[in-house]
């Protein structure tokens, strides 16, 4: 995070910001006032101080995302560590995915701290989901099933929060940039399993991960009525969001209650 750019953006967005932050105005060397321009709001502790409430809502979303990234990150760390789990030929793929999840964890922690929030602690995970998947780290097919579920859930989770971030351009853009990476991962893992890279109807396991993916109506229009693309393709062409509650319902299966 470039703090100087951040402060500059805030200043451009709100020339009065330093008045709001009078106690801190001597802490930094700022240039003269910049011409007023409708520049995106940006993250930062100063921002939080000046606009506390809306930023705390953003921190909440980021912490929610961080929880999911913790889950994915630990899942791949364990998977890559497990002997005789991931075939040699596929290790490059999971090393790349794991690298991204670790980077997402680090990125979100920094973003939360910069926004004046406190990153949530990493929960204790149980990837067997109370023995529902006892061989998750010894049977490659089970590992792949959960990997796909986590990635597809991640895509739906970020999508579901985009609207909550609309007031903050920098956070929104970063969230979209993570969102599409999760989708790339999901496509690759699905194809490793012999599935299509995209979601057809609401097929997949666990069922909660795919609930609602069969939707054909976008913007109030049943898309099958305005295109010659087959209905299956219309369903595949639009990924659907999940609410925070739905996602936490899925994630909680893998989180050890303290």
């Amino acid at each position: 995070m470039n703090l100087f750019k951040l402060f500059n953006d805030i200043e451009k967005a709100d020339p009065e910001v330093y008045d709001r932050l009078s106690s801190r105005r001597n802490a930094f060397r700022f240039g003269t006032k910049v011409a007023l321009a409708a520049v995106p709001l940006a993250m930062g502790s100063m921002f939080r101080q000046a606009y506390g409430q809306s930023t705390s809502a953003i921190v909440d979303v980021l912490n929610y995302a961080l929880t999911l990234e913790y889950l994915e990150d630990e899942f791949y760390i364990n998977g890559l560590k497990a002997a005789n789990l991931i075939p040699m030929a596929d290790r490059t793929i999971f090393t790349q995915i794991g690298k991204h999840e670790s980077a997402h964890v680090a990125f979100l922690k920094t973003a939360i701290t910069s926004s004046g929030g406190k990153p949530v602690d990493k929960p204790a995970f149980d990837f067997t989901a109370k023995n529902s998947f006892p061989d998750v780290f010894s049977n490659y097919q089970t590992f792949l099933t959960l990997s796909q579920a986590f990635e597809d859930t991640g895509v739906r989770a970020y999508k579901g929060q985009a609207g909550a971030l609309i007031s903050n351009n920098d956070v929104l853009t970063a969230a979209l940039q993570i969102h599409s990476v999760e989708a790339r991962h999901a496509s690759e893992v699905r194809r490793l399993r012999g599935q299509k890279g995209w979601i057809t109807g609401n097929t997949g396991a666990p069922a909660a991960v795919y609930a609602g993916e069969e939707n054909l109506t976008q913007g109030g229009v049943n898309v099958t009525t305005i295109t010659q693309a087959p209905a299956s393709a219309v369903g595949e062409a639009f990924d659907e969001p999940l609410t925070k509650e739905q996602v936490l319902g899925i994630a909680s299966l893998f989180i050890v209650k303290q």
Partner: protein
Amino acid sequence: MPKQIIANPSDYQLEKGVLQPVGRRLFLRYAGMTAATSALLLAGCDKDDDNKMTGVNLGSGDIGILNYAYALEQLEAAFYIQVIQSKYAGMTTAEEQILTDIRDHEVAHRDFFKAALGSNAIPGLEVDFSSIKFNDRASVLNAAKTFEDLGVSAYNGAGKLLVSADYLLLAGKIVSVEARHAAAIRSLLNPKSADFAGDDVVTAGNGLDVQRMPMEVLSAAKTYVKTQINADQLPTQ
């Protein structure tokens, strides 16, 4: 029989009725399309032609961004229609399935935007795929990779330009499918590698995918679009 209808070229050639007359098209191509020459071009045309000479105007605000997305989806749909119409030598069944699926997704996206925009929709664009060798696997898949990565970066960059949360969600529903395509195409080009989410598109340090602003995207897309696209009124922040 939707499959057959889609496979019929005449239905999915971008609407011929809106294509510019050949003479003017050539004039535009040879005269060049830089800003510096546009005034000259206008001066050399009948007054009635002014709109056409300045190209298709995407418009402003959210409508402008939706038209921008519609333009990209038109381009992608036209490309994959051509790919399936003139399959490259040695296209495997698995590859044909993937490319057909992607074609149908892009057609659905294109038709959705057209319907959503209604009378605000830009006309059908005239494409230029002369740089793509449709009989050559590598040429086709590399072009597909370019289109998909460009699409992902375009939606990622345009999200913040939207005012409506509803449109933002719709864009979100589409961009992840484009990212799924991008990964699949990249994986066809280089199976079992890290390329599906390679370091050339996903920054290794922070795990963020590429995002681009409309001007950059349209400049990259220019090679494939004959119609001049005017994005001057699009929001920039």
